[in-house]
């Protein structure tokens, strides 16, 4: 019958695709959207811990975080500045090292495939294992870093680089660069491989040296892939948690010298039992990323129009 075949076709073309994506959509709702929205919702309530009576407090948590002087609010400004320092230094370092590695790996030399695999080692090892290994390397007494610095005369005695309340961020930045540069390398290498060799040959004929070829061919043609790689890394590393938590807070101490917004949010929510204020810090942290994402989307939009 004509009517039932129309219904069947409708079911196939309209309903069936939705049925297929339903499990993924449900999982996304349950494990991504719901926690996100409930987190935002919590930031407007008085909840301290699970089981507490919850009431709506409007923007009170935000006011307290931005203008308070005791508890987590006392460290908010510092954490915010350190988040910017951490992200900028780590991503810049990853870009420089990643670009250098990509340029080298783009050349033809014996054993290139082995090196291309080896460069991915930092990504293949679980972050916590990396963090614990670096923690050991930074140890003042039996760490390799102190040992070799003493041997070359740069240190006179043992130095504790990390894990103290006022330890600086830069030893962690080194780990972050080491951890993240391989992915940057892979992205940039894919961009490099997309540049036609003829352009380099033509430039060579015109007398351009290596730096000139890099400046006038490589960089302009890789603008889009560089922008994507940098924005993605900014998003990931702004939110990074494990390296800072494991190495920076050695022994479970609250280390304000090496603290970023995600770490402060975690302490506020789970160590000091202020879930709502922890959620508010996370929301503020997310707004920064949202601004970057909007800027990137507009920039992409403009480049497409051009």
């Amino acid at each position, binding site marked *: 019958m004509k009517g039932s075949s129309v219904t069947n076709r409708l079911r196939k073309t309209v309903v069936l695709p939705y049925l297929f994506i339903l499990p993924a959509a449900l999982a996304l709702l349950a494990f991504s959207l719901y926690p996100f929205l409930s987190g935002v919702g919590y930031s407007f309530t008085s909840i301290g811990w699970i089981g507490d009576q919850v009431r709506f407090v409007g923007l009170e948590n935000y006011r307290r975080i931005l203008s308070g002087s005791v508890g987590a609010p006392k460290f908010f400004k510092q954490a915010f500045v350190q988040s910017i320092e951490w992200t900028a230094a780590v991503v810049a370092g990853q870009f420089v090292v990643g670009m250098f590695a990509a340029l080298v790996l783009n050349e033809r030399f014996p054993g290139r495939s082995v090196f291309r695999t080896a460069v991915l080692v930092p990504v293949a090892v679980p972050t916590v294992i990396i963090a614990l290994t670096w923690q050991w390397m930074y140890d003042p007494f039996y760490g390799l870093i102190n040992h070799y610095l003493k041997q070359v005369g740069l240190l006179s005695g043992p130095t*504790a680089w990390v894990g103290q309340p006022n330890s600086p961020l830069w030893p962690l930045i080194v780990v972050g660069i080491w951890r993240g540069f391989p992915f940057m390398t892979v992205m940039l290498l894919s961009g490099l491989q997309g540049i036609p060799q003829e352009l380099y040959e033509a430039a060579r004929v015109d007398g351009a040296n290596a730096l000139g070829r890099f400046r006038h061919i490589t960089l302009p043609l890789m603008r889009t892939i560089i922008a994507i790689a940098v924005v993605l890394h900014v998003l990931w590393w702004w939110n990074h948690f494990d390296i800072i938590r494991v190495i920076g807070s050695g022994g479970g101490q609250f280390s304000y010298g090496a603290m970023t917004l995600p770490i402060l949010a975690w302490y506020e929510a789970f160590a000091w039992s202020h879930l709502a204020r922890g959620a508010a810090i996370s929301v503020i942290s997310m707004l920064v990323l949202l601004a970057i994402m909007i800027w990137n989307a507009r920039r992409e939009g403009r480049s497409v129009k051009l």
Partner: protein
Amino acid sequence: MRDRRLTRRAFLRTGSLAGAALLAAACQPSPAPTAGPTQAKVATSVPPTAEPSAGQPVAIQLWSTAWFPSSIAGRMALVDKFNKEHEGRVKVDYIQGSWGEATTYIQSGVAAGGGIACVIEYEVEGGAQDWYRKGWIKDLRPYMSEEDWALMIEAQWKAREYPDDGAIIANGTVLWEPMQLVLYNPKHLEAASIRPATVTEPWSWAELIENAKLLTLDANGKHLGEDGFDSKQVVQWGFLPRLDSEKVWEWGLRFAQQRMGKPVVRQENGKWGWNLDEKGKQVYALFLSIVQEGVTPSLAIGLSGDSLHEAFASGKASMILRETFGIAIIKDNYPDFELAAMPTPFEKGDKVFYKAGGEGMVLVSTCDHPQEAAQFMFWMMKPENLALYAYGNGMLPANYAALDKEPFASDPTWDIIKDYLARGEVYTTPYNPHLIEFRDTVAAPTLMAVVEGKMSFDEANRVLEEQAATLLNQ
């Protein structure tokens, strides 16, 4: 020719049939195991049921937070002893857990409705109290006899009581006070002709500082304070405590409270606050001044426990400040190193006040065999059993009578602790849910600023008084 391609309809039909068949297969009861050599292995891996079959012992599990070899060995020896004594009735299985995972373990286990160990080791204050508040553990009172109550002094039970309903939330395993010692290298003290402190002839903080100066040597063998001493070429430090944010709080409070006889953070007139009296201020200020006074290297700011032991055992430090368990760890890691212990500084004739509380075992609310689990928990508190546990852990047993049992009885290192107890007086500290936040965000940074010489102690004390009034009364 017939088109043999797989149509979408056929693919979906086949897929659905295969899925249904798999589902049906999965719902089938599993076949009875066939008799054979693997059967015994299969049976042991089956988790215990709520109603064990006749003749089978009730199986319970202990989730242990033991973290170094001798502490693990002590627990295992205890479990073996219990299993032998209760053969055929109750059997305890030892599971190795860790401090860092304990909260996640119990939280997820209780949320899942069970399947986790019945007995978990943890800290009482802050930790187990919080677990009880969240309904993860049971009140032990229904399982306790008069004999069980007598296994620990009243103040230690009080420290394990939940304030709202008087529930006993944990048994007592080891205590956190008094177990602070100065561990020293006897050869270094002998070479410098220094007589170590004893409980009857203690050192004051000033004496400790003076002796530490004599023990701090440069590469030319000159000591701190001597003409020509090169502070950049120190090869042996006199006194090396850990001075991180954890220790300036924990140890500083301990020394101050030891003199004051009451908690520094407490309620007065219904308001929580930071309350140091003159004696407490004096001790706290002295303890935090050692780096600025030049008796302790700035390296102490930021030293880990392992690094401290390494420095001590390798002869780079003559005296270190450590809890009793440090002895067991150092002996485990450096079996050939000779060390000795003396009391921490205090004024001669003063009483040694110490805080009740420490660690214990909790009974998980989802436990299928709470009676048997509680039986194990109180059995292990008997002096002869607890001695095995606490000595392996290098910590003071919650039941003091265990100190008279082996291996404590024949170890002279513990004489200092026995002396402390003989002249000590115990006090309890109240529970404030914001104490950790106060410690992390106010006390630790402020006290560290004093250690680093960026703030005077009086100024720090003023800051702590002001901010405690806000933060602890949220």
